[in-house]
């Protein structure tokens, strides 16, 4: 057994409750089954244990984390443990008073999602009226002096808006504009045909983003997260499974990433039953794909295995039926043909499935 790696990043999914209904949501499709969120005291204990383990970056996420009544206290506790604390929010529940209280509690940074540059396409994706409120909140965030990342999930319906999104981020005085192409898990996988951009639109957006990245370097940072179906590059699974990153869901289950629950047979231990240190180091789920002993060919003998770690384990399971296979995004995967057909499978008229309790029940009935 090699020494346990050190975690740097913790994503704390404080709740699955959310006023938005975004069709690309990364929360599990069966989120309606989730009960009994961690208490304030349990999250405080997790943050202290995470800091002791070496975590530096804490993302307070959801659902909508602003729905937690104890958010100010959780921010205070995170900062008392010297964690770099980022709030990932849809913004619709924020006002000036809340933002001032978050600032006074020590919040370091806010990542605000918007669904597009134009109201109509944005609200088609969010499933509720929210666009103007988000723009107003972005201005409040800047007024109060928070550094701001605008995060936009990019897909077929808004990919042509990339130039307008860049203009908007500059106008709002954002520090960062994350152009996050849709990753096809959870709700986004259910809506894949409607969200998959065309090759032409994707290549054009990438070219525009590349030029903007160079033009605004040092003033507006523009991370461009690739659509791996179209880029053809396997994603380096969270920088390696159980290597530097962990996610804790609203009921306390500790996972190597928020999507990992799709892989059958993995049991995610809860911080209600064990210390974070013990789970991170010893739990079978956290060790399932650590290192490279689990790898099959073509990954096992591939020189890129320390770069991309064989791609995404969840995607390997979803597309090849076995989480230990090469991610079929890779041209060397025997299942790569599936990806070739899926990347061309873009359907403008596919109905959208909104992320809400009703759809969650319908999709997880079986």
């Amino acid at each position: 057994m090699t020494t346990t790696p050190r975690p740097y990043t913790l994503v704390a999914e404080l709740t699955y409750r959310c006023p938005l209904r975004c069709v690309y949501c990364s929360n599990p499709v069966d989120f309606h089954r989730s009960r009994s969120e961690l208490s304030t005291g349990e999250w405080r204990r997790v943050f202290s244990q995470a800091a002791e383990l070496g975590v530096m970056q804490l993302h307070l996420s959801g659902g909508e984390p602003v729905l937690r009544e104890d958010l100010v206290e959780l921010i205070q506790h995170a900062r008392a443990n010297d964690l770099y604390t980022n709030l990932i929010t849809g913004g619709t529940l924020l006002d000036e008073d809340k933002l001032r209280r978050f600032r006074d509690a020590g919040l370091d940074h806010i990542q605000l999602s918007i669904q597009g540059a134009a109201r109509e396409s944005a609200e088609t994706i969010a499933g509720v009226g929210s666009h103007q409120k988000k723009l107003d909140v972005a201005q409040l965030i800047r007024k109060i002096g928070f550094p701001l990342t605008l995060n936009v999930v990019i897909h077929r319906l808004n990919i042509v808006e990339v130039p307008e999104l860049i203009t908007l981020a500059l106008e709002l005085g954002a520090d960062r504009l994350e152009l996050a192409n849709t990753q096809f898990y959870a709700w986004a996988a259910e809506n894949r045909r409607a969200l998959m951009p065309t090759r032409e639109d994707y290549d054009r957006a990438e070219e525009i983003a590349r030029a903007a990245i160079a033009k605004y370097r040092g003033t507006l940072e523009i991370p461009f997260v690739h659509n791996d179906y179209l880029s053809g590059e396997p994603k380096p699974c969270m920088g390696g499974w159980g290597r530097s990153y962990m996610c804790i869901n609203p009921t306390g289950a500790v996972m190597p990433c928020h999507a990992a629950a799709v892989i059958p047979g993995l049991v995610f231990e809860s911080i209600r039953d064990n210390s974070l240190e013990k789970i991170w180091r010893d739990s079978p789920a956290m060790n399932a794909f650590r290192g490279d002993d689990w790898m099959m060919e073509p990954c096992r003998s591939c020189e890129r295995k320390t770069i991309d770690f064989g791609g995404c384990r969840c995607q390997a399971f979803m597309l090849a039926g076995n989480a230990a296979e090469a991610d079929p995004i890779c041209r060397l995967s025997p299942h790569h043909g599936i990806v070739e057909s899926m990347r061309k499978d873009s359907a403008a008229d596919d109905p959208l499935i909104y992320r809400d309790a009703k759809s969650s029940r319908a999709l997880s009935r079986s």
Partner: protein
Amino acid sequence: MNADHTWRPRLASRARLKFDPIAQQEMLLFPEAALALNETGAAIVRLCDGAHSIDEIVDQLSKKYDNADRDALMREVMDFLATIRARGLLQ
């Protein structure tokens, strides 16, 4: 980069220093990433408060490291500031 001696660099609001007790080194933290700093880097960051000019930063560092060659220190400071400025970590 030319040395503009009147420039008073200020760290961006989204970046802050943290001492990492595990690796025993200073880290510059910012959204989604971090830079591990050596002692000089951390000393420079502490002086990036919008009040100290480049000359003053170099003066303070040369006092701190009393045998330092001022030209070499100036180069080190300018290189370091160029690196963090390119990452948007200076205002």
